[in-house]
């Protein structure tokens, strides 16, 4: 198996009057196509870990390899390029752009990876069809149910054909059945893509290849 993301002794500290260590000496490897759950109590550092894995935040110490390359010294522009081309995000509160329709939201993700306009639309159409939303292409977020909005977000994450999808509590705002369906859509659509899901939901973590337990910023195993 080929590693796609490797963290070596990664720590994250914040300065809020006093130093707060949110992550401490985390080392882990995520392999291509692997489905991983990150579980732990609230405030244990799961979301911060996801932000670091998603290059949205830089670690205070330690090093990160993405697809065999160190990203520690990369510029903001280079990290943005990695996010645009190789990473997909799914958030708890869906995070769709309210002014855009479902298909436009999906297209938006490809705009930053310089995909041509027509190709964006074709791929967005395909991605939405793959999550069962072909009939909702021109609906605005407020015209969609929570489950549908999350499926648009999944389509947006999948549309670019990323190497890694990072999902932060993707079922947190959904009922159990809808949550199940959303996770199914995500797992089915991401064959060959590594998926890292931060979740409290045992039924979600149970469906994945591996569970990483975090407690007070430390990886338990």
């Amino acid at each position, binding site marked *: 198996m080929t590693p796609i993301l490797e963290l070596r002794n990664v720590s994250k500290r914040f300065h809020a009057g006093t130093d707060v260590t949110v992550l401490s000496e985390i080392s882990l490897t995520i392999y291509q196509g692997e489905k991983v759950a990150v579980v732990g109590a609230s405030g244990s550092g799961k979301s911060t870990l996801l932000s670091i894995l998603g290059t*949205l935040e830089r670690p205070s110490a330690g090093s990160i390899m993405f697809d065999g390359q160190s990203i520690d010294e990369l510029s903001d522009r280079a990290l943005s*390029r990695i996010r645009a081309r190789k990473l997909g995000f799914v958030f708890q509160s869906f995070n769709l*752009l309210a002014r855009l329709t479902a298909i436009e939201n999906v297209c938006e993700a490809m705009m*930053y990876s310089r995909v041509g306009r027509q190709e964006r639309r074709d791929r967005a159409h395909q991605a939405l069809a793959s999550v069962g939303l072909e009939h909702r292409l021109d609906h605005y977020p407020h015209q969609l149910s929570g489950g549908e909005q999350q499926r648009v977000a999944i389509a947006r994450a999948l549309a670019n054909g990323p190497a890694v999808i990072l999902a932060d509590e993707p079922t947190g705002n959904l009922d159990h059945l809808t949550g199940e369906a959303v996770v199914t859509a995500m797992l089915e659509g991401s064959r060959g893509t590594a998926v890292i899901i931060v979740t409290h939901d045992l039924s979600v973590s149970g469906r994945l290849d591996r569970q990483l337990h975090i407690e007070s910023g430390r990886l338990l195993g």
Partner: protein
Amino acid sequence: MGPSDLIARAISALLARPGRTILSALGVAVSIGALVGVLGISSTTRAGLLAQLSSLGDVLTVESTINDPNVRNLLPGRSLATLRVIPTVQAVAGIRALSGSAYRTDLIPADQTRGLSVVAFSGDIAGATGTRAIVVRRLDAGVALPEVLLGAQAAEQLGVTAELLPTRVWVSDRWLYAVGILSPTLNHSGVDLSVFVPAAYAMKAMDFDGNFNTIYVRAPLDTSDTVSSLLPATIDPSGTAGVRVFRASDALTAAADAATAFQSLLLALAAVGLLVAGFGIMNTLMVAVVERRAEIGIRRALGATRTSIALLFMTEGFVVATIGGLSGVVFGIWATLLAAWQEHVHPLIPVEVVLAGLCISLGVAAVASLYPALHAARMSPSEALRTMA
């Protein structure tokens, strides 16, 4: 993210808050409108003036500086013939103020002069004063009364219109026939308030000695300076009359320059307006940045660089300024056309003023949107996303 993507997103964001967008654009529109309008109107007025001057020629007024009522031979009548010989001179006329005034009828009390003066004239008075004898109706043969011309305002004061000509007017205690009305002079000189009696009649019946106190000479604008320098020596070779020459073009140019001072004040006000409009755009964008933290976070997660985020907000500023700038230019052009129409002159809107208006509005947008754009670009993506969650 190409320019068309940026513009499309900026327009979509602005359309989401139309009221705010219109108010921001209005600030720019008013200032740019004032700028284009002020410069357009002044250019139009100046161009109209120059066109009139160059079509009519310059009017040179020659007067004696000797202010002694006992000196009668001020500007000799024979000098008119000499002046006509000066190259490029187009028309020459001399006048001499006579006693008395002019009235519509002999029943009007003598003290109600309405500021009119009676002058004896010789030569081409309409041509030399840069006016046109707009209506001249000759008397029928056999009417023995002498014919007079009325200045534009004199005709108005006397209640004489073109349709009434020829008509009797009471001039210096006698009936004379008004046969023509002169058009108004460009510089609203005393000519407009005068009643012109032919010199031949005035010498015979009104105690006029044939010498003038004012001589008008018309010459083309480009040679009026040279002609003006030749006049004193030609009229008064001995230099005893103390001849002084005034150019109408000087007075008109001075008037146009005086208007420029007022124009500077208006332009300064427009500049202040632009400054305020700039702060308006900055404020609107700052509010937008705060309101759209979540969007900034999402876009950063989707791969937007800091530059893309900054450009997104700057483009919104540019779109607002362009809407405002274009509306302002249209407003300024409309104001100039209206002014030109009212003053019956050909409108002149310099292209550089229009371009400057648009460039200035874009410049204001660039400065005003820079701070909000940088503020948005510097936002940490994870923090922006956390705020929303």
